[in-house]
């Protein structure tokens, strides 16, 4: 054969079959084991069918099974499995010997990249294909196969596979060290919510009322969170007896899929520029070194700094809020620790201290400044009270007050709560020092019209000597807690809600004896009982939460569980549960229990006796 003919490349190639085949044959233990483990699921289904009679399984149940797997298992499995596949297909980049072989071969990086990506995707999809094929085969044999559900499940699996493998590939291009890759992937996957949680936790150590619970604003930047929050099963009643089941959240999956494709594109651009000599280095590009140093320093300061403070500095703080100076010292020390640890990884040497004094001072100063910036409340978080027109709903909760919601329709109550919030903020220093005790732990949660939420928590005890001043927060808390409207709101089912059932339990005899189990079929009893409870609430027969310790009436050991459902805007239902204690003052409810012959006079008498024995004669009012 002529030399030129045998060696000239006739056209540019984007795929190399040999490398693809080699990747799959080299790494078969991974996808083989995962396929085998995954196959246990259809095997289990098959055994169940053979034992229990497959005739009972409907195609709706099969659909439900597929969608449940797609919504619950596939995101987590894909997230974990993607990094394993990426570690294998890109493993040649992490050893100087292997990168030398691969980059000597007569193919360009475009071809290597495309082939490796396709190999990785194939390795990810093979186990899904095996498990899916077996499941569908069983469904076909037993006659409950649903083609549409199978197609949607395949689509969801492919979208999630590309999403997570794209992210893993992007991470693989940033580092030259195979052990750094899973750490980086884990960090990138959860970085945004992790940083948000760390900053929120730290802020809650300084800022009055800041609850420390993360709002999840940046959860969408963590694909696993974003997918789990948006993908779900939806049941919609149809004309027939059965409900139809749908997998919702494909819009989100498509967005993450596009992000995965974009990350693959970025990964490709990085690979084109990636120096082969970076094999073994923690950072594959020199420009990433400061990012790695500062990133590790920041994470170390926010996590270890907080831990160090909790261990050694808590005794020096006043109230339940942290001392900014001590916290700044802790963050500076641990930030420096992170900085040097990063330097050691980057330099692959422990000798990183020489000549680093200037950098060390800068790191300490930045970390301390960050701490002071958070403690100084530069963004006015402490004083933030939403404007009335921005509030969609507000909920109020306390130790003895389960969360009670007021929407903008109940404007007066919303205004009262906002006024109370402002009154509390006018006494910030007193509350910060916990000068007023901590009997109450008032949690206010605003749901704003822009879809965000704002939560604040305040600890205090109501001051008896301030009750005469209606503008004081003590008087406002007392008035609010003693207002029957608060209890009415607790038991009122919203306009878009429907009562579905009421359960009544009597615990007087030591166990929860079921007095009433009312589902929709017995809705008349449930409705009558619910109306009685509502009437008691309106007439002030149900006591509100205690304002002072020892306040309030003593309840019977009888509890009602009210269940209702609301229609969601995007379709489907949301189910809600409320629990209410029975008090001797709830005359309408007790009367209804007697009328419905759910209890006898004798049993009510027994309840009274139990109350007297436990709390004395005063317990019956």
């Amino acid at each position, binding site marked *: 054969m002529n030399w030129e003919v045998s060696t000239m490349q006739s056209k540019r190639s984007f795929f190399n079959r*040999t490398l693809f085949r080699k990747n799959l044959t080299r790494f078969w233990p991974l996808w083989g084991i995962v396929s085998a483990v995954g196959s246990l699921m259809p095997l289990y289904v098959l055994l169940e069918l053979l034992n229990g009679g497959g005739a009972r399984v409907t195609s709706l149940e099969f659909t439900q099974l597929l969608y449940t797997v797609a919504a619950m298992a596939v995101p987590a499995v894909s997230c974990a499995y993607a990094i394993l596949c990426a570690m294998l297909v890109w493993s040649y980049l992490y050893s100087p010997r292997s990168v030398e072989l691969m980059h000597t071969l007569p193919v360009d990086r475009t071809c290597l990249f495309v082939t490796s990506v396709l190999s990785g995707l194939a390795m990810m999809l093979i186990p899904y294909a095996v498990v899916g094929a077996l499941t569908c085969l069983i469904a076909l044999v037993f006659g409950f196969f649903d083609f549409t559900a199978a197609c949607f499940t395949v689509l969801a699996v492919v979208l999630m596979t590309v999403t997570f493998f794209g992210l893993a590939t992007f991470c693989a291009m940033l580092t030259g060290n195979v052990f750094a890759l899973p750490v980086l992937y884990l960090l990138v996957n959860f970085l945004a919510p992790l940083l948000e949680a760390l900053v929120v936790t730290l802020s809650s150590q300084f800022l009055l009322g800041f609850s420390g619970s993360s709002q999840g604003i940046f959860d969408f930047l963590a694909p696993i969170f974003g997918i789990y929050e948006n993908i779900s099963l939806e049941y919609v009643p149809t004309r027939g007896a059965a409900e139809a089941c749908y997998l919702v959240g494909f819009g989100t999956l498509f967005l993450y899929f596009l992000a995965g494709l974009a990350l693959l594109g970025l990964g490709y651009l990085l690979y084109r520029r990636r120096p082969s000599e970076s094999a073994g280095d923690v950072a594959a590009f020199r420009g990433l070194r400061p990012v790695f140093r500062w990133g590790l320093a920041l994470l170390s300061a926010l996590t270890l700094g907080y831990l160090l403070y909790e261990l050694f500095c808590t005794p020096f703080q006043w109230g339940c809020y942290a001392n900014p100076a001590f916290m700044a010292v802790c963050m500076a020390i641990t930030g420096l620790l992170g900085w040097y640890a990063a330097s050691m990884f980057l330099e692959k040497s422990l000798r990183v201290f020489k000549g680093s004094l200037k950098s060390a001072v800068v790191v300490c100063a930045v970390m301390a400044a960050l701490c002071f910036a958070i403690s100084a409340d530069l963004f006015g978080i402490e004083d933030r009270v939403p404007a009335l027109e921005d509030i969609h709903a507000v909920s109020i909760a306390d130790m003895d007050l389960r969360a009670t919601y007021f929407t903008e329709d109940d404007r007066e109550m919303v205004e009262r709560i906002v006024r109370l919030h402002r009154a509390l903020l006018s006494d910030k220093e007193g509350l910060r020092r916990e000068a007023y005790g901590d009997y109450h732990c008032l949690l206010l949660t605003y749901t704003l019209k822009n879809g965000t939420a704002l939560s604040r928590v305040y600890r205090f005890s109501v001051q008896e000597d301030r009750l005469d001043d209606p503008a004081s927060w003590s008087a406002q808390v007392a008035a609010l807690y003693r207002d029957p409207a608060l209890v009415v709101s607790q038991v009122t089912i919203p306009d878009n809600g429907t009562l579905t059932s009421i359960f009544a339990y009597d615990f007087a005899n030591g166990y929860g004896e079921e007095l009433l189990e009312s589902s929709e079929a017995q809705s008349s009893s449930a409705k009558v009982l619910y109306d009685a409870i509502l009437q008691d609430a309106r007439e002030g027969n149900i006591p509100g939460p205690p304002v002072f310790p020892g306040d309030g009436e003593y309840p019977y050991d009888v509890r009602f569980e009210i269940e209702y459902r609301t229609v969601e805007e995007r379709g489907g239902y949301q189910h809600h549960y409320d629990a209410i204690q029975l008090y001797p003052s709830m005359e309408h409810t007790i009367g209804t229990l007697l009328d419905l012959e759910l209890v006898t006079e004798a049993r009510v008498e027994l309840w009274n006796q139990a109350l007297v024995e436990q709390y004395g004669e005063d317990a019956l009012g």
Partner: protein
Amino acid sequence: MIEVKNAVKTFEGFRALDGADITVPDGGVYGLVGPNGAGKSTVIRHITGIYRPDSGEVLVEGEPVYENPAQKALLAAIPDDWYYFQSATVADMMRFYRGFYPAFDTARYERFKEVFAIPEKAVIRRLSKGMQKQVAFWLTMCCRPRYLILDEPVDGLDPVMRRQVWSIMMSDVAEHGTTVLVSSHNLRELEDVCDHVGIMNKGKVLIERSLNDLQENIVKLQAVWKPGEAPVLPKELEVLHISHVGRVYTYIVRGKAAEVTARLEPCGPLMLEALPLSLEEIFIYELGGEHYAVKEIIL
């Protein structure tokens, strides 16, 4: 022809290549020699398209080799530490190479089974270092490269196999016009096979000539002077090294043997003899000027 033009490569502040210039003519054996850390492996990694130079050019047949599959298809390389897949057999690696190199010669692979006498089904990882090197040669030679790039190629091979391997390579050079670029510290071996030599130090190529030119341009003179006479040499002679044992003086002088001898004759030596230098001696004395003089070690 392989050309490296003013190539510069820096690794974290260390200048591994500092304006290296190499020209490897077609159809010969080019020996790249130099002390440890001179940049030989770095320049080879540039030629095989692994590294991209910070500046300068690396060309194969006039085309840049980096990210150029057509030019890379003309090359095959055996690095000093050849990579194979962990569980791969010789046959597995053969299939791998065959899938990439369009000129891969399967018939030759079959013929070489007898030469190398390594079971095709043997897992390479379990072979000795020398046998692994044989496998590297086996597969690389089957790629039928126009340019064969070798970095410390025969380390670990026994003398018989060394001769065998060199014999195969030299026959390829003779029959197919294959160009061989070989980096080695075994200068005696290179001396036997090289047409051209490049001496590298500190990222630069100090000398690049044909071996004949190199050997003709430096000479070792042995002279015996009269007792008690201090030998005064003509100033125009570029003397690289002087040593003496009793009255016998040895000079390493740059220049052609006849010219240098003619200049020394008038000084009146009792005896004067010009001797050819080995490549090893040329390497040592040339680099002596680059502060690489052989130091006497006293134990």
